[in-house]
């Protein structure tokens, strides 16, 4: 059975990265922007996994496991911050955060 070439994974990850970047730039809702960041993180993860397929020491796979953990931590903290921002401004659109001082 033939295996899947590495280049296919790289194409998918390039697509995911571009989509995440577009979401990051396009949307004004903070939760939407966070979802775009998650897509970018996962595109990087897919690259690491695809290349570690050919690496006997598997360093890319280990790094991607730690990237997963850091991504979850980032999401938890970021949503807590979004909650506080909503309490202060009553809005979570990125263009509505203005200093009151």
């Amino acid at each position, binding site marked *: 059975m033939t295996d899947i070439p590495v280049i296919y994974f790289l194409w998918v990850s*390039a697509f995911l990265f571009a989509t995440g970047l577009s979401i990051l730039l396009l949307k004004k809702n903070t939760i939407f922007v966070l979802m775009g960041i998650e897509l970018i993180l996962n595109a990087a993860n897919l690259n690491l996994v695809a290349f570690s397929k050919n690496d006997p020491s598997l360093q890319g796979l280990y790094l991607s496991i730690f990237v997963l953990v850091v991504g979850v931590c980032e999401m938890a903290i970021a949503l807590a911050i979004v909650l506080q921002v909503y309490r202060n401004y009553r809005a979570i659109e990125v263009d509505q955060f203005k200093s009151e001082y």
Partner: protein
Amino acid sequence: MSPLVLAFLVLALLTCGSALSMLWTKNLLHAALAMFLTMLGLAGLYVLAYADVLAVAHLLVYVGGVLILILFGIMLTNQTDPATGKNHLMTRESARLLPISIGLSFFLGLFWLFTKGPWIHNLPVTGESKLREVGLGLLTEYAFPFELAGVFLLIALIGATFVAKSHD
């Protein structure tokens, strides 16, 4: 076409299609649902890349954890329209042309780079499941970073609950 490549194509189509619908929709809840489908497809792609440990962890973490967090975020920050009494899940966005063209140019650039790169095509394309190696490595060679990741996760969760409580 081998069945493996066919499975890859289906999963890649699921991942890319739902990512695109995330980009397209303005409804926050639809985007969360599309993100769920993207994560499912990505877990399948990880399985096809012989990273089954990571696929299971990814499913547990993203579908079980991050998506629930996002849904709670949506529910806790929604704004009820005082006139009609309906919830606003539709989000605003900036002009579509510039962000999408930036994303498209990034995609085309990366596509060109990956396709033209001479360092990619001569890689061997065989593999097998790395479950045993990863399990051994996480408990021997990478035991310290593994423990550190656990402590980091604990710190992040305590910090998140501290930040999210009301500071009146």
